[in-house]
């Protein structure tokens, strides 16, 4: 490998690679799926309910509400400010607490609270805020809460929300779609347009060419993995370890892409194989979607060893001890795939020199 020539080829890949249809698709598809999933299962744009308060007196209720993590509270100085904030959606509900509100409640008097509701607020927010206020008022008055709700899970439900179940699929798609498809389509395109033939008679070796294509795939795929975790609020925990795992997963994706690119003659065949053979890449995500499936089945598939550490760190807060075994298997698979690439190059007449 020659670093200068690889850098020249890498420059070409970075300048001209993003102009390809596959590059755009490799970015758009995983992010599109993420947005659809997060919108459907509510993580991306769902914020805490927002309550606006104008307190004419000095109510303890305001302090009690502000201590709650489940509601965002904003305090206003007069009714018109509160109304304006509610009207433009700064708060879901605005309430006006009268003077001597606490005294009246404690004495058991009937008190009217004037309230405003933003017309576009979510129904769940319109429910959460009044119920929470009613509970706090009862507490202020020194009364028992009249109803206590106990949740009982029925059926096979394990309690894992769907946005968490889909995250492994989204991560795998982000990492493997770009990481695999970009080097493979680029290589096949160069074979079909015969530009590869022009490159291999320069002093650049086929190794330089392969490495430059792999690096673009690895960079894109690592970036996509991070982006999807960030969009799903799952990147915070132990991010350096997470990036390292994503990087080695991206290396596996790029290596598989190079093997596919070296063996497959045209883009149509590549897509046919992707559609039919993609199951082998994506099989491990099913155990996260449906936890009742035994985990050993997923271990048959190499992508499991890239996926499990990501899930362990990002969703279960795990650290090095929880992922070390699978991570070493992942590194081993990456090294083994280098051997496969060398073998493919030796067997393929196209790259023999």
């Amino acid at each position, binding site marked *: 490998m020659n670093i200068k*020539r690889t850098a020249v080829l890498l420059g070409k890949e970075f300048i001209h690679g993003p102009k390809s249809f596959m590059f755009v698709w490799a970015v758009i598809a995983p992010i599109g799926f993420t947005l659809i999933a997060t919108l459907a299962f509510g993580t991306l744009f769902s914020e805490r309910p927002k309550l606006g308060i104008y307190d004419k007196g000095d109510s303890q209720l305001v302090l009690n509400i502000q201590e709650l993590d489940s509601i965002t509270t904003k305090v206003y100085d007069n009714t018109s400010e509160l109304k304006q904030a509610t009207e433009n959606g700064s708060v879901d509900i605005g309430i006006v607490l009268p003077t001597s509100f606490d005294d009246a409640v404690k004495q058991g008097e009937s008190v009217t609270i004037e309230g405003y509701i933003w017309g576009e607020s979510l129904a769940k927010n319109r429910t959460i805020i009044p119920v929470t206020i009613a509970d706090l008022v009862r507490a202020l008055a020194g009364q028992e809460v009249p109803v206590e709700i106990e949740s009982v899970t029925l059926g096979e439900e394990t309690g894992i929300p769907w946005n968490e179940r889909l995250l492994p699929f989204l991560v795998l798609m982000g990492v493997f779609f770009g990481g695999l498809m970009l080097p493979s389509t680029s290589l096949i395109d160069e074979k079909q347009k*015969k530009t590869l033939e022009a*490159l291999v008679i320069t*002093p650049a070796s086929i190794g330089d060419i392969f490495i430059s294509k792999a690096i673009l795939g690895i960079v894109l795929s690592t970036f996509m993995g991070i982006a999807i975790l960030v969009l799903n609020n799952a990147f915070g925990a132990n991010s350096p370890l997470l990036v390292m795992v994503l990087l080695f997963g991206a290396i596996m994706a790029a290596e598989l892409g190079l093997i596919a690119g070296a063996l497959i003659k045209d883009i149509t065949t590549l897509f046919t194989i992707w559609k039919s053979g993609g199951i082998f890449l994506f099989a491990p995500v099913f155990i996260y979607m449906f936890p009742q499936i035994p985990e050993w089945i997923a271990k048959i598939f190499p992508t499991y060893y890239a996926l499990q550490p990501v899930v362990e760190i990002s969703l279960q807060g795990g650290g090095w001890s929880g992922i070390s075994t699978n991570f070493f298997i992942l590194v081993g698979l990456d090294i083994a795939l280098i051997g496969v690439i060398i073998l493919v190059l030796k067997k393929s*007449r196209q790259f*023999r020199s």
Partner: protein
Amino acid sequence: MAQNAIIADNLTYLYGDLVAVDHISFSVARGEILGFLGPNGAGKTTTVKILTGQLKPKEGKATLLDMDVTRNVERVQAEIGVCFEETNLYQRMSAIENLKLFARLFGVTDFDSYALLKRVGLAGREKDRVENYSKGMKQRLMVARSLVSQPQILFLDEPTAGLDPTSSEAIRNIILEERKRGATIFLTTHDMMEADKLSDRVAFMNQGKIVALDTPHNLKQQYGKRALKARISSKDGRLESREIDLDTPQTADAVRGLFEKEKVVTIHSEEATLEDIFIKITGRRLTE
């Protein structure tokens, strides 16, 4: 420094059971233009691929500039330029971008891409995307690309195929300029006139073997028939043809007799073409 830039020694290559190149041996002197002729499937491209390090021969050895090609692929490829028959430029790049990419891969730093493009007649279109070029322009750019490293050996595979006369002539001039610079040129072509005009020697390849290798003049001497062709006016005014073989003891008498007895309208000499010679040797046409 050896005299020969290219030495092919007993080169053999098989695609499965098909023998594409069958124990061929030849050499090309430094600064020489060798025309490599043969019909489709004769083994020309496979030979070029072996010589340029794209294929390893099953048997034999290729030596370029005193280097064993198989063992020194990168060093050999640093000294050669290849212009392919099929266009294999980066279509979405401009001409300048194409040339600069290959110059960088060859490690060429003092490189004037504008001057090179001017030389091949592409001045003014340097920054256009190659996909908007005509076939002739693309071919001229391919030739320019093969020259970015000022190679010692230039492999040109059908460089003028399908081009208009102006583009063809421009490429032929560049070939002659490169020879003047000292480059050795391995020219694969179907165009007999071109081979005859440009080549110092020509090799005929047929069914994986080299069946003849010599200067065009010697091949014509050896295999061709020289003749005089005359048009005469007969007594009733009709034009008739007469042919006199120039290589017989009776030639002088026959020529004298022609002028004494007939009314000669036109007369010219005719020599065999390389195409005629190829047919004579192989029984096949080059364009088969």
